């Protein structure tokens, strides 16, 4: 497997409006083609910032992000993003279906194909009924599922998801987790998945990247050595799962307490 | 190009556009068109109305209009600035009679202003500042022994002058017909007829063209002058028809139409009175050098 994403010494400091925030100090990691990597870390650690840098939406203040052999300076092709601000990422002037179809249209798909893919994606997230509603007529969780449907209908080769299941109920969340794993298997897509749910990160990922507190570095890169076939009941009740989840939980607690892998500071 | 050509059609008639102001002064040309004086000269005249010289003079210079009507002082100002204009016909003149002219300064009935001299130091409304009305008022005030430099002129449209006088915002206002009749009908009092007081034969307005047009179309200009002369004469002798033709291009109330004073329409330009206006313009600082009247006037 080849390296698809190479983040090397990434740093990002927000300046302007009277504040200077060193969000990311030094992030280095690699992701192979077709991997599913989860990212966890304290609130405000810089997960969203990292994702935006990878997506080419934000310029870094230091280091490089190389995707598929070329340095990322603008959004690369074949990428889909589910934003943390799912509500604001939907076009309020379009219906749900049109929201899902629009990127497909930009991809150059014909009408029939677009409709088919959009319907399938909406079906998958359980929103077929609401296809003709506008986003602001939907509940929070439904809006979030529209954003997910849009991303999966796009059939990206790289999928970035920022807390995509934060607003849906437990059962739907489980269903969507399985959906993501299924799609990942089917399409061979590389997935970067930010979540706060530790169980979720362990259940979904092949690796879990735990970030430190701000200014952020990688605290630990936890390989998830669970069998590839996962199911909600079996996997979650396995002993290894419990081990992994408590390990990640501990890391998060350390991160919150300010623990860092090396003495912080220059 | 400026000063374009006249469009002559195959049957020999020349189509002309003449820029005029929709006021009593230009009644003769309407009457002349109606009477066919222009037709018989082979001129097909279209009359276009505008609010004042600001719109007509550029139109004539650029050839959008072949001829135009303007007050004499405006023409003098244009000429002194080097604008290549040429007067082709007399336009309208004062009746020369105090109290029976078509333009005058009015005040409220109970105003302390009795004579022209009393205007000194007062607020006087005129329709355009630094133009024929201010120079002639200055002249009559000066002649009456007042100091015109103390007059505070205010610019207001003719329709608003009576209202401003009535409201007391100005002490006096210079108006022309039909506003003069309307104002006196509402109880205002005439103080002085500034045109008649300046010169009994004062040439208040004239028809003009551009030098370029004249150079290229001397025949057309000649025909226009001839037709105008006929029209002016006809208007001078057919007062009732003049009052009737006003219905074609104004909305003057019939009662006012009947009572208003008509100006004089001599067919020749009174050069002396133009010289008087030119002197006044120089004296009041409207211009810095005398225009060459020889070039301006026919």
């Amino acid at each position, binding site marked *: 497997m080849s390296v698809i994403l190479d983040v090397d010494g990434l740093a990002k400091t927000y300046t302007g409006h009277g504040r200077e925030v060193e969000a990311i100090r030094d992030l280095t990691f690699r992701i192979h083609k077709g991997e599913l990597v989860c990212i966890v870390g304290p609130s405000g650690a810089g997960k969203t910032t990292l994702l935006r840098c990878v997506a080419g939406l934000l310029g870094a203040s230091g280091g490089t992000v190389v995707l598929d052999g070329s340095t990322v300076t603008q959004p690369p092709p074949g990428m889909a993003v589910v934003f943390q601000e799912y509500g604001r990422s939907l076009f309020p002037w379009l219906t749900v279906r049109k929201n899902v179809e629009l990127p497909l249209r930009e991809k150059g798909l014909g009408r029939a194909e677009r409709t088919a893919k959009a319907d399938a994606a909406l079906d998958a997230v359980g929103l077929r009924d609401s296809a003709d509603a506008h986003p602001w007529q939907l509940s929070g969780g439904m809006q979030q599922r529209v954003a997910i449907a849009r991303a999966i209908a796009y059939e990206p080769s790289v999928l970035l998801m920022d807390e995509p299941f934060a607003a849906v109920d437990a059962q739907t969340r489980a269903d969507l987790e399985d959906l993501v794993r299924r799609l990942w298997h089917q399409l061979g897509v590389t997935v970067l998945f930010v979540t706060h749910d530790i169980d979720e990160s362990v259940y979904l990922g092949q690796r879990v990247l735990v970030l430190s507190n701000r200014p952020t570095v990688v605290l630990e890169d936890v390989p998830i050595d669970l069998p590839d076939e996962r199911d909600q009941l079996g996997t979650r009740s396995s002993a290894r799962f419990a081990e992994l989840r408590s390990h990640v939980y501990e890391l998060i607690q350390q991160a919150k307490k300010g623990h860092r892998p090396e003495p912080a500071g220059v | 190009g400026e000063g374009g050509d006249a469009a002559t059609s195959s049957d020999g008639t020349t189509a002309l556009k003449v820029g005029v102001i929709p006021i009593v002064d230009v009644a003769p040309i309407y009457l002349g068109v109606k009477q066919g004086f222009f037709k018989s000269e082979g001129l097909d005249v279209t009359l276009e109305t505008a*609010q004042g010289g600001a719109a007509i003079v550029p139109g004539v210079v650029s050839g959008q209009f072949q001829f135009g009507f303007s007050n004499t002082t405006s023409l003098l100002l244009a000429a002194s600035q080097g604008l290549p204009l040429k007067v082709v016909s007399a336009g309208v003149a004062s009746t020369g009679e105090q109290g029976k002219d078509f333009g005058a300064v009015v005040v409220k009935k109970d105003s302390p202003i009795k004579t022209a001299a009393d205007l000194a130091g007062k607020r006087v409304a005129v329709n355009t500042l630094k133009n024929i009305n201010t120079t002639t008022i200055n002249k009559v005030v000066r002649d009456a022994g007042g100091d015109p430099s103390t007059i505070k002129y205010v610019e207001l449209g003719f329709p608003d002058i009576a209202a401003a006088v009535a409201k007391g915002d100005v002490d006096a206002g210079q108006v022309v017909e039909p506003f003069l009749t309307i104002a006196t009908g509402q109880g205002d009092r005439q103080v002085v007829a500034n045109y008649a007081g300046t010169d009994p034969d004062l040439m208040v307005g004239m028809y003009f063209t551009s030098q370029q047009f004249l150079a290229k179309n001397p025949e057309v200009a000649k025909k226009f002058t001839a037709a105008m002369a006929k029209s002016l004469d006809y208007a001078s002798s057919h007062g009732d028809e003049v009052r009737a033709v006003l219905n074609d291009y*104004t909305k003057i109330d019939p009662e006012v139409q009947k009572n208003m004073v008509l100006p004089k329409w001599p067919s020749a330009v009174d050069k002396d009175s133009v010289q008087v206006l030119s002197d006044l313009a120089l004296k009041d600082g409207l211009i810095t050098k005398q225009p060459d009247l020889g070039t301006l006037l026919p």
Partner: protein
Amino acid sequence: MTTLSALAGRVATRPAPLTKSRPAALGMLGVALAVGLLEALPRLGIVDSRFLPPFSTMARSLAGQLTTAEFWTATGQTLRGWALGLAIAMAAGIAAGVVVGSVPLLRALTASTIEFLRPIPSVALIPLVVLIYGSEMPSALVLVVYASFWQVLVQVLYGVADVDPVVRDTARSYRFSRRAVVRTVVWPTAMPYVVTGFRLAASVALILEITAELIIGVPGLGRSIGVAQSSGAVAETYALVLVVGVIGVLVNVLARAVERRALRWHTSVRGDL
């Protein structure tokens, strides 16, 4: 103040069934008040009725004019000049606004020039347009376009700047083409601003059309007003002014209808506030 009780009212009472006649009825109430005022002020002698006749006098004069062909021709001419000028200004203003607004460098380059040109009054341009077009329709057209273009442009510029960054990023991350971004993101965001721009430009265009007719003598209602003014026909003048105002009101009704359709999705319309 009605402001906040209205806010509260949205919750307290069940939203009143939105019958079509309600806005119209309320609008008529406003008109009736204004007409009443216009009738009463001169009648009570608060203003001099010689200079501002009571509404009934204006209405009578208007009724007289409504029967003349001249009036309708003039109205037609005014409306044609207005519509044409407005259409040109809208098209040019939107195109320029979207282009300049989406390219920061262009915006920086043009900013000072735009600010220089905008405050130049159209009346000052009158001699120049007469020089080129005389008292024909194009003269008025140039003035109309010049004046209303800026209204649209500025609205569009601000509208384009109002794009939600998350929405913009969404479009970018799906690699929308420049054209697609304009069509699917920038345009809908700027739409509410454009509608306001249309309403502003529509009345500015009408004002300039009338003013140009009045001063230059381009055929139309404005010239009729000019003639009535210089004849001292006060009632006729105001009757024509009433017509101009009514045209303005109708234009607004049109704009509101367009808005309700085009901005169904927008907070301002969907909130039935």
